[in-house]
Structure formats: C-alpha cells, structure tokens
C-alpha cells in the first residue's frame, strides 16, 4: 500500500508544485473562472490519455489516437449533429474497428506501433473526407454539457475527477479490468489458466476506442467546431500523460488516476508560461522538460527504493 502511495505521489506532487507556482504568479487564477480557463482543454486530453492507457496496459502502443480523436470530432461535428442515428452508428463502428485491430495485432503477431501508425493515416484520411475544411457544429446537448456551470466547482475540475474515478473503477476494481491488467503483467499465466487472450485484447482496444470517441466529442463540445487536424498532438500528449502518471511501457503497470493527473499537468505546463510572462514559444518545451524532470525524479526514487 505504501509503495503504491509513493507511486501516485510523484505525479500529484508535480501537479501541486506547478499549480502552486501558477497561483503564486497569478493569484487571480485561483478562482472559478481562472480554474475553468486553466483546465478547460484538459478534458479531451484526459480522455485521450485514458484511451492510450488501455493500449499501454496490454503492452502495446497506439500512434493513431490523435487522428482517431480528430476523426471522432469530425463525425460529431457533422453526422452526429445532422443525422444523429447515422452519426452514432459510425462512432460505434469505429469502436468495433478498434477492437478488430486489437485482435488482428495479436492473432498475426504484428507490431502494434506500425499497425497503429498505418491506422493513423486511415483515420486522418477519413477525417479529411468528412470535413475537408474546418467547420461543423456540436450537437446542442453536447455544447450545453460542456459549458455547464455547476455551483462552486467548475466543470473543468469535476470532469477529470469523474473520468479518473470511472476509469479507476473499471481498470482497478472490476473483474474484467483485473484480467486486462493481467494480460500486460503475465500473459502466459492467463493463457495457461484458459483465458482467451484475443478476446481480452480486443476488449482493451474497444475500451480505448470508446474513450477516443468520448475525447472527440468533448473536444467538439468545447471548441464548437472541428477540423481534421484538431487533435494530432494528442498522440504524443497521451503517451506522455500515461508515463507522467506513473505508467510504464511494459508489464501492465498503469494508474488511471495518475494518468489523468499527468494529462492535467501537461495541460497546465502549457499555460504556465503565459503566467510567467515568458513567451508562449516555450509551451511545448515546458511539456518536454517536465516529462524529463519527472522521469529523472522517478529514476532517483526507484534507485533509492532498490538501495533500501
């Protein structure tokens, strides 16, 4: 228990330090609207991070999540808004497509990195075909949902907490989630016990697709329009978020709560510099630097743990 706390402590600490610095530099950020502004765009990032986490959990990696989220955003801003039934059917089919890719990767023993790379072209192409130029509009209910103003705590805070808790319940508490983690931890043990690895892997990919769909929808709800390149950066951000949150590339070691915190940290790192009155040129750099710093800190912690 203790060590698990330690693991979650590092991401929490990095977020807290960053948040503290922002508040110190700009006390007005410590308000309902300030927080909403700081974390608004964190919601789709957090959802995309959950999607990536499902894939990393089974020892694969998804280089297509950014274009997939863009695709879902385009579908939401066009079909879902105009002909809802068709729109939702497309999104469901996309989730099924994700599951099929997961099964294909396992059955044929393919490198996930290349297959998802190829799929990133496919999703990107489909997005361009649906929405050649920026535009579209969110369905009204979605816009209403994403601009909700709950009392006391802004949506930008509540939503990530809800996402983290739901993902935690599924991955860490449910019987299925435990099996999926087991696939990452010791696939052979599951196979020996008679579990169907294909089915489990397809499930992990389907859940990832589901989170990707949610991310696309949330993004459209926030930005009121979509374009085919809207979420390209999410591929890299989602990987970084999972890793920042204490996840690892192999062994099924991931933490949903940590990953959401990681996503928040990355979002905050981007906006932090404007508070420093530094040029926004360094936004991406700050994300990279935080990533490196946290990973270095983690190495120190694990060294000390190993020494103790």
């Amino acid at each position, binding site marked *: 228990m203790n*060590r*698990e706390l330690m693991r979650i402590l590092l991401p929490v600490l990095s977020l807290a330090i960053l948040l503290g610095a922002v508040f110190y530099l700009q006390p007005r950020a410590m308000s309902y609207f300030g927080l909403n502004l700081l974390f608004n765009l964190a919601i789709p990032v957090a959802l995309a991070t959950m999607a990536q986490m499902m894939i990393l959990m089974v020892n694969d990696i998804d280089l297509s999540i950014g274009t997939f989220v863009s695709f879902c955003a385009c579908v939401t801003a066009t079909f879902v808004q105009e002909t809802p039934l068709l729109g939702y059917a497309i999104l469901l089919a996309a989730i099924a497509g994700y599951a099929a890719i997961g099964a294909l990767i396992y059955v044929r023993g393919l490198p996930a990195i290349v297959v998802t790379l190829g799929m990133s072209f496919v999703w990107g192409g489909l997005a361009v075909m649906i929405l050649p130029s920026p535009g579209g509009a969110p369905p009204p209910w979605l816009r209403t949902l994403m601009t909700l103003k709950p009392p006391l705590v802004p949506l930008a805070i509540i939503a990530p907490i809800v996402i983290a808790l739901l993902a935690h319940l599924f991955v860490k508490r449910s019987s299925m989630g435990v099996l999926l*983690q*087991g696939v990452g*931890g*010791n696939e052979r043990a*599951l196979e*020996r*016990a*008679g579990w169907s690895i294909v089915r489990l892997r397809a499930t992990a990919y389907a859940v990832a697709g589901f989170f990707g769909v949610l991310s696309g929808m949330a993004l459209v709800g926030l930005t009121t329009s979509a374009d085919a390149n809207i979420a390209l950066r999410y591929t890299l951000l989602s990987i970084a978020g999972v890793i920042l949150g204490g996840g690892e590339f192999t062994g099924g070691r991931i933490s949903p709560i940590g990953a959401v915190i990681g996503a928040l940290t990355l979002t905050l790192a981007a906006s932090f510099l404007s508070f420093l009155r530094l040029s926004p040129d360094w936004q991406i750099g700050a994300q990279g630097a935080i990533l490196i710093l946290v990973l270095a800190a983690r190495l120190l912690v694990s060294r000390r743990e190993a020494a103790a």
Partner: protein
Amino acid sequence: MTPPDISTSADLSAPVVELNDVHMAFGPVQALSGASLTIRAGECIGLVGHNGAGKSTFVNVVNGRLTPTGGAVSYTGEQAPQDQVRNSARAHSAGIRSVFQELSLCPNLTVLENLRIPYSTMPRHRWRSLARTTVIEALDAVFPDHGISAHALVGDLSIAERQMVEIAIAFSKRDHDARLVILDEPTSSLDVSIARQLLAHIRRFCAAGGAVIFISHMLGEVFEVASRIVVMKDGRIAEARETADFTHDDLVEAMGHVVPEGDAAQAAEARAELGPEVARLPSGLSARQGEIVGLAGLAGHGQAEALAQFFLSRSSKWRADDRPEVVFVAGDRARDGVLPLWSILRNLSLATLKEFSRRGIVNRTAEAALAQDWQQRIGIRADKLTDPILSLSGGNQQKVLFARALASAAPIVVMDDPMRGVDVGTKKEVYRMIRSEAATGRTFLWYSTETDEILECDRVFVFRNGDISAELTGADITAENMLRASFEMQEAAE
C-alpha cells in the same frame, strides 16, 4: 485451505491420477519412456532425480499441460469422455493444481487479484471480498503469521513472499477442490521456519485426503514429508518405495549415473602444468591458465548467472577489443546465442569480426575461410554456409556457437551448459578439442548439467542456492560427490 469434501476423504486410498505406461517424446528426444504410477488420495510423493531425469516432463503430463505421445493418464471423478476435452481441462476439473519455479503470478496485480486468474468461474458479484477472504484464509492456513496483505502488489513482495502467495493460491478453495497439488522446489526461496510451516501443511492436507507431489533438492525435506519416494532417472521411474525403505545413500545411488570407464583418472593425469590464476569470481570460484574448471550442481542454482556476470565484467559495452579477453558459448541458444535471421556464416563470425577486419570493413575472404575451416574442424553438417542458421538441427546450431567462440584468440572461454541437444559423437569431438585447446594454455569455465561432462574437468565447483557448496579436484570428482553436494543432505531443520 481446502479439506477435500468428506466423501473423498473417507476413501483414503482412492487413486487421484493413474499413469499407465506413459511416453513423452520431443522430436527424437525421449523425455519420458514408460512411466507408470498411481497417485492415491492421502499420499505425499517425494519426486527426486538429477537434471534431465524427466521430473518436469512427468509433472507436466500429470497436470495436463503436456499430452503424452503414448500411454494413458486418467483422473478420478471423470465423467466426460476422455478424448473430447483437452488434458489441461480434465486435470483442472479433477482438482490438479501446480506451483512451479517460474512464477505464474502477475506482478502488477495485488495478491487477491491474482486469485482471479486461475479461478475462471469466480462469481462477479462482490468478487473482491470473496477473493480477499479466500486468499487470506489460504495464507493463514498454510503460513500462519505470514504478514502479507491481500492488497499488496505482488511486484512489491519479496521472492519468498511471492512464492508463499503462489503456494497458498494453489491450496485455496475454488470451484473444484484441490485433490492433488504439485509443488516444484517450493522451498527454494523460503527460509527454514516458513518451509517448516509448508511441510506441516502438506501433512495436514494429506491427512485430510489430499495428495501432493513434492519435488525438492533438499533431501531432508523429502524424507520428512513424503510417504513414498519416487526416483527418476533417464526418463524412467527407477525406484518407487515407501519412504521408510530408503536411506540417504540409497537415494543417491538410485539417482546416480554409472560412471563411464575411468575417464576421471585420465582427466587427472592430462593436466601437467597449469599457469597462474587468471580468473576469480565473487563466489570464490577461481581458475588458472590452461585449466578446465567445471561448474556443477542442479540447474538454476546460480551457475549461469555467475558466468554471465563474469563475462560482462571482463568485456566493455563501449569498445570492442581486437583481442578480447573472454568469449562466451551460450547454452540457451534462443536467448543467448543464435541470431535467428542470419546465415550460418554470419552467426559463426560475429565474435571475431573485429579481429579480422580492416579499417572497420569486414574482411569477407577471411570470414569465409574461417567459416570453412571451422565447418571442417567441428563438423557442422550443412550444405552451404550461407543457409539460414535455423535450417540446422539444434546440435549443429550449437556447434556454430562453439566455433564462434573458439575461433577467437581469447584466452578464457566461458561455456554455459553448451551441450544441450548435441549428439554423443560430437560431444566426444568437442571434449577432445577443449582438451587440446586447454593444453595450449586456454582456460575454460564450463557449466554443465551433465555428469559425464563435469568428469572431464580438472577442478569442479558445485553450486547450491547460488553459493559454492563444494570444490572437488582430481580423484574426488565423482558423480556421487557431486550429487551429495548438489542436494541438501541434513534434516530440513532442527
């Protein structure tokens, strides 16, 4: 824990598993030839034997992971026609459970979550609390005062604690009760008092009508817990008697090989003059120039790790020497030796590329000549050296790895059980080659799981639990001495 239900325990000598003339062949290798055994409720079978005697094949047939190539396995309480269901499913529903040395736990899950994996029919509703109580009950039953939390991540536990969890899960209550539990070296990482708790639990379990197969290199433990001892040798059951009918010496004798005619004596006279000490390992193993040093003992007791560590400590990850100090002959070919995409030629020349290169460019004439030369010398049976290495048989692949190392001028050769899958004729050739290379001043560190190879050595270190348990020289190098040092002889604990 699970006392099997009353109906079975009432019938204390009912057979749980019956093996009838079981054969198991892997290609040309006969791992099990004609094993027959009936395991009855209430008995604990101590299974002993030297490396390669067929112990693990035997238990894998019992637990259904291997389907025998001949003979029949039958389980009690079977209703289903035997041919329709996979053996592993039959074994599973017959209540056969196994604990192996390679851990089958998921390190990223907690102790209680790991119960979910073998327990496929676990009810979904409130499964966590069910898993928690089941695991803790099992742990409490086997290892009182274990101090392991059901919520701890397995990866955070010590090796001993992981082994305890795995054992407890094997004894735990599930949809099918445990009738026979197979324990392969269960005490290897447990300390004495914990091991005693396990032995006590095994006795309770058997008294209640369960059966256990207990494999251990600690003969004291075997004598203490087993009601019957089965000795395996060369894929056969050599002896199967009540424990009371055995003495320690009987056991060693039953396990032992027949010593080949006077080889040991020859070996002793061949080494006339040895040079200065050229290697010393942290474990205390040392070697002199021109000496053939053997590392013996049961497989997995730290010999391979010691050799790999020694090699890595003498070679750099940043620069390659023109004249390397040590070369390595791998025994686990797939893991440590063979480069599967390459030809025989390229595999053979890898370690000597730098020695035979000019300004960083591979000297391909010298490479081809070298490969030709070694193909002759060591007798690699291949049409063309440009054929893929995987087109060769295992023994010929091994010869390529030998040639890779011996072709170098390195003064020390480290060999990690390099004769697996090599036929007898080749072995003799290789022995001769090693001996003549040693005569020219080369030093060999040779880990082997086969007794007659160890008998070729000038000096032998026997490993047990990662430490050296005996150093043998000259006439002391005998199969019996090695067995004695490999197995823990004294009683399990006082």
